[in-house]
């Protein structure tokens, strides 16, 4: 379950990010479901101005957003840290063409992780993304999330860069195993 947010206001971070995405003109939301993204995904699915695109694997979302930008649309990729590894070769398209890419990565294997199998990819997220040409902006405090996503959006769509906001497991809370 996802708890451990620092206060009642910052617990509304999915709603705050959703508002940022709306204001940024995002119309394609690609995702592989993740517990940390569940509320944000639900908000996007309920919004008629957004195409919510469920993926079978995260690299599909990278390719989708390249096509979106070709067509004049802005998108975002929502994924868990384990999905980052699935994206690597498709990120070469982003780098070669200098497509804007905005992705929000919810972390596993990082803070209070129970499942050892999540740790290798989780610990490799920043290096893997940076090696693939993606700027990584890590957020540890829920209160900083919306502002960071807004800034990342500008970096992506205005400066034509690939930017990942990684959301600490500290914000999401460790998964409870009962």
């Amino acid at each position: 379950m996802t708890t451990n947010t620092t206060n009642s206001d910052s617990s509304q971070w999915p709603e705050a990010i959703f508002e940022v995405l709306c204001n940024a003109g995002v119309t394609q939301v690609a995702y592989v479901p993740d517990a940390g993204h569940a509320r944000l995904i639900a908000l996007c699915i309920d919004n008629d101005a957004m195409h919510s695109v469920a993926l079978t694997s995260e690299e599909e979302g990278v390719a989708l957003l390249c096509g979106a930008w070709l067509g004049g649309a802005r998108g975002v990729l929502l994924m868990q840290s384990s999905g980052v590894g699935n994206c690597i070769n498709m990120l070469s398209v982003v780098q070669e063409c200098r497509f804007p890419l905005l992705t929000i990565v919810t972390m596993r294997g990082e803070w209070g992780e129970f499942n050892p199998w999540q740790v290798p990819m989780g610990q490799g997220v920043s290096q893997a993304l940076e090696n693939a040409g993606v700027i990584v902006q890590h957020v540890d405090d829920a209160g900083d999330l919306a502002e960071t996503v807004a800034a990342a959006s500008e970096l992506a769509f205005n400066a034509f860069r690939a930017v990942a906001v990684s959301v600490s497991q500290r914000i999401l809370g460790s998964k409870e195993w009962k």
Partner: protein
Amino acid sequence: MNVSHEPASNLDRRAVVTQLLAGRGDSLLITGLGSTTWDAAAVGDDVANFYVWGGMGGAAMIGLGLALAQPGRRVIVITGDGEMLMGLGAMATIAVQRPKNLAVVVIDNEVYGETGMQYTHTRFGVDLAGMAASAGFESARTVYTQSDLDTLSAAIYETPGPLFADVKVSTERHETVLPPRDGTYLKHRFRTALLGHPEKGALAGRES
């Protein structure tokens, strides 16, 4: 596994792509890496073509993103069997989105043409059109004959999508015709043709 030594079809890939693109009008074209890009370039370079020189497995999904962004335009993806096989999940994802304006055409010679003509899975009977039909594509077919191709040539522009076609072709190889390959140039060229400016959509936020 048993492998047939008979070609699945005598259709010529370059003639196929030439015929398919003859009626393209203002439709937008995405090609997968390798032979389908050379085929499209041989037909004639076009500002409404975006050649994916890398990102193997991504052509159909780039097509989906474009189709969702441009619902008023036909989007045609022409890619190879090896490229499609690397991104089979896209079939499920596209089928769920049901874009009426998207057609995915696989030019299926049943070999990896760029790497030494090794057999792909389709040579062993993997049925891409069957997979697309099972995923839920509105229309899915395998093309073996000139008559089938004639029908497809109209269908990709007229039949409500998503449409999938696996066009069986011979293994004959052709001259490698290279289109521009700088990705940023291709992106800017395509967006300028479609949107009027390469940076359209930057800074402005949500646009009507």
